[in-house]
């Protein structure tokens, strides 16, 4: 346990301490918690994610998984605890600032810009890397043209990772369900995150789509060398892709470990299958 950033007084609780111990983690949550509607939706949540780790966040319905994402992205302000992103405390930041600091996410209930075309959804997410002002846009000055062309090329390149470049001009709202989920991932990637949060990316997909998605997530991970946290109910996907897994139940972490350890953990089995009746 020698992974200690100079900012954090507590030992790193990385799911995979050995692999990522040598490098500063991308994310560290310490005692994170929030009370929603009188209940502790998330409580005493401690998690460290290595710079290039793919971690799974699993748990039964209503366990608080999405709430963790909402805390990390400041959709909710935490009632307790600290979130360090690349060693920086995100206290006082809002959703926009957290994204600029490096967290991008997808949503469990798809939130695309329905009336924008597929490519414009991606380019909207590249807004912060463009610099021309509104006068350049109105007068169509050379820097407008230059930056738009570059953005368009990069957007198409990102879309091609998910085989979506041929749908570029279709309105996002009219895409089939699976494609909408993939577009959300592309849009998140377009913001150049160091940590990507995927909230049930395979929900509603058929098995072959899920298999493709798994390949694509691996590809993204390889290409961009970023950390990914994945919420997913599809256990084969989670067990196949994740290096470390964190299990949540009633807002509390009940287990952390490698896929093998999690699969054989009695507390996890109990949480999923329910407590065995005492005879």
């Amino acid at each position, binding site marked *: 346990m020698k992974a200690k950033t100079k900012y954090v007084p507590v030992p790193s609780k990385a799911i995979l301490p050995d692999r990522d111990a040598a490098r500063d983690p991308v994310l560290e949550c310490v005692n994170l918690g929030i009370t929603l509607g009188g209940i502790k939706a998330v409580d005493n949540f401690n998690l460290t994610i290595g710079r290039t780790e793919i971690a799974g966040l699993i748990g039964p319905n209503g366990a608080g998984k999405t709430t963790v994402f909402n805390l990390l992205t400041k959709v909710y302000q935490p009632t307790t605890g600290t979130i360090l992103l690349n060693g920086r405390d995100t206290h006082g930041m809002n959703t926009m600032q957290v994204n600029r600091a490096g967290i991008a996410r997808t*949503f469990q209930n798809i939130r695309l810009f329905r*009336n924008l075309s597929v490519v414009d959804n991606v380019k909207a997410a590249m807004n912060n890397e463009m610099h021309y002002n509104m006068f350049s846009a109105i007068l169509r000055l050379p820097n407008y*043209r230059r930056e*738009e062309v570059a953005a368009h090329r990069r957007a198409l390149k990102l879309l091609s990772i998910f085989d979506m470049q041929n749908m570029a001009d279709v309105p996002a709202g009219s895409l089939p369900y699976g494609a909408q989920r993939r577009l959300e991932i592309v849009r998140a990637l377009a913001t150049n995150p160091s940590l990507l949060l995927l909230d049930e990316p395979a929900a509603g997909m058929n098995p072959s789509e899920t298999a493709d998605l798994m390949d694509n997530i691996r590809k993204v991970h390889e290409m961009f060398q970023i950390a990914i946290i994945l919420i997913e109910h599809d256990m084969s996907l989670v067990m196949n892709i994740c290096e470390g897994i964190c299990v949540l139940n009633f807002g509390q972490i009940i287990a952390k470990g490698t896929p093998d350890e999690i699969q054989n953990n009695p507390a996890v089995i109990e949480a999923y299958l329910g407590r065995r009746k005492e005879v």
Partner: protein
Amino acid sequence: MTMRRLINLKRVEARRIYLTYAVVIAAYVICQVMSSTKFLSSSMRGMLVPICAYMVMSVSLNLVVGISGELSLGHAGFMSVGAFSGVASAILMQGVITNAPVRLALAMIVAAVFAAFAGFVIGIPVLRLKGDYLAIVTLAFGEIIKSLLNNFYFGMDSQGLHFSMLTDTTRLLKGGRLIIRGPMGISGIQKIATFPAGFILLMIALMVVFNLVNSRSGRAFMAIRDDRIAAESIGLDITKYKMMAFVTSAALAGAAGALFAMNYSTIVANKFDFNTSILILVFVVLGGQGNMLGGIIAAAVLTILPEKLRQFSDYRMLLYAIILIVMMLATNNDEIKNFLNRINPFRRKEAE
């Protein structure tokens, strides 16, 4: 890649934009020809400038309502800020700049700047609100602007500029001129607004709005409109972009107000009341939110209609209301929409 591809306009969208410019230019040429061949009645000729002004109002409000997705009920307020600041500056410039078109252009720029400033100041509290609340507060600000201007006195004499509120305490020296006279507004305006000027302003408004919409700002406006939480999650500055749309829209409305006012010899603040704001909103809704050409056509039709109904004297407003309701129902009817879609080669096909 063709040029169009480079600036990334989908073909349908690009065609719609070119169609809008083409229709506006064609309409302008036809009206000019008709007017020079005395084919146009004098009452119609007098309406050309107000129609242009209302068209610009429609385009500018469409930026807020159609593109940014915020319901604003006080747009006439920005028009009146533009009208008063534009006319007042034109009067001040009278001695210095003798060329009327240049003076008009400068007055419209001054008007746009003042209205943009008003838009910024009002935007700070208003844009924190959402939905219906925002609509109601813009309504209130529209009324506030009206009553401020109704109580504003502004004059010039050899000592410089003077202004006062509530009562005329400007105490101008002999030879001075009280330009804005509270509820009496401004009178003795030189009518320097012309139809070509209105046409140019409309073309500029269209260029500003179309080019802004097809840029990173426009994508941000529409992204925020479609899903605010997702827009925040990709790092868009909601406040900044809402403000940008609101201020741009106010500036265009200000220029339109100056054009409108300089078509009359007298202008009063009460002309720009809640009814006018609603009328402009009706242009946008009737023309289709986000559809600039539709809004322009609606502005023309609904400005000419009351004139054409004049022969029905007492029943004029009743007929106007009935026609408006029928038009609203018709443009909202799915079957009629489908029919229009079928005969319109520029609409996007559903199946695509």
